[in-house]
């Protein structure tokens, strides 16, 4: 059976419980679900962040998220995977991204989930802008994200 893979890019918030139910419903082969949820922090580079704004490349974003899920499904034995990424304006404490992986055994779901997040951070065309009391500022990519993604090719 091939894995069920879906992605969403949306302004609206998402609900873990609802997404989890959709992911596993009707699939008795699922023995493990791993969920990663990324949140907006109030401190990024040691200054007060009032809000976060996410820009993306419509079309390419969905394509690249789906490719990341497909790569994970080729590498690990997955029943299903789902990525939800928000765009637009968000505030400290808000959810920003969710990656769900479902497999028969936990090892696959754990590793595939981390792989998907590591690749998302370096491959998917999203850009974060921070709003601080001093005004807006684009966040720059970190080398540590490239290192996190490259460990999967070693």
């Amino acid at each position, binding site marked *: 059976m091939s894995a069920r893979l879906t992605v969403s890019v949306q302004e609206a918030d998402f609900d873990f419980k609802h997404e989890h139910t959709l992911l596993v419903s009707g699939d008795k082969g699922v023995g493990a679900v791993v969920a990663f949820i*990324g949140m907006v922090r109030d401190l990024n580079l040691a200054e007060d962040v009032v809000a976060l704004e*996410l*820009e*993306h*490349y419509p*079309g*390419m974003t969905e*394509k*690249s998220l789906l490719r990341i899920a497909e790569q994970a499904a080729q590498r690990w034995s997955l029943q299903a995977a789902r990525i939800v*990424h928000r765009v637009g304006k968000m505030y400290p404490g808000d959810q*920003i*991204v969710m990656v769900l992986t479902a497999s028969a055994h936990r090892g696959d779901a754990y590793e595939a989930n981390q792989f998907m*997040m590591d690749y*998302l*951070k*370096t*491959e*998917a*065309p*999203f*850009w*974060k*802008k921070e709003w601080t009391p001093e005004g807006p500022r*684009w*966040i*720059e*990519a970190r080398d540590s994200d490239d290192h996190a993604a490259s460990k999967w090719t070693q």
Partner: protein
Amino acid sequence: MNLQLLYFAQLREKFGIAQETIQAPATVQTVADLIAHLASRGGIWQETFSGEQAFRVALNQDMVALTTTLKDGAEVAIFRPVTGG
């Protein structure tokens, strides 16, 4: 060759445009040639593409290397390294 260029995030703000269609000269064959062509506009364009700041290029919505060959009618997006997640 006709190219549809898209700029995102920092670069869109720097250049003051989100997209443009250009008729590239015959010397433009690869992504690197296109970047050199844009840098030859001078000012902020030259500063952006000849400085130390990294940028990425997507050709028809796939990330590509500077050596990739362009095709007529292609959509080429140029942006700073991504920061999602």
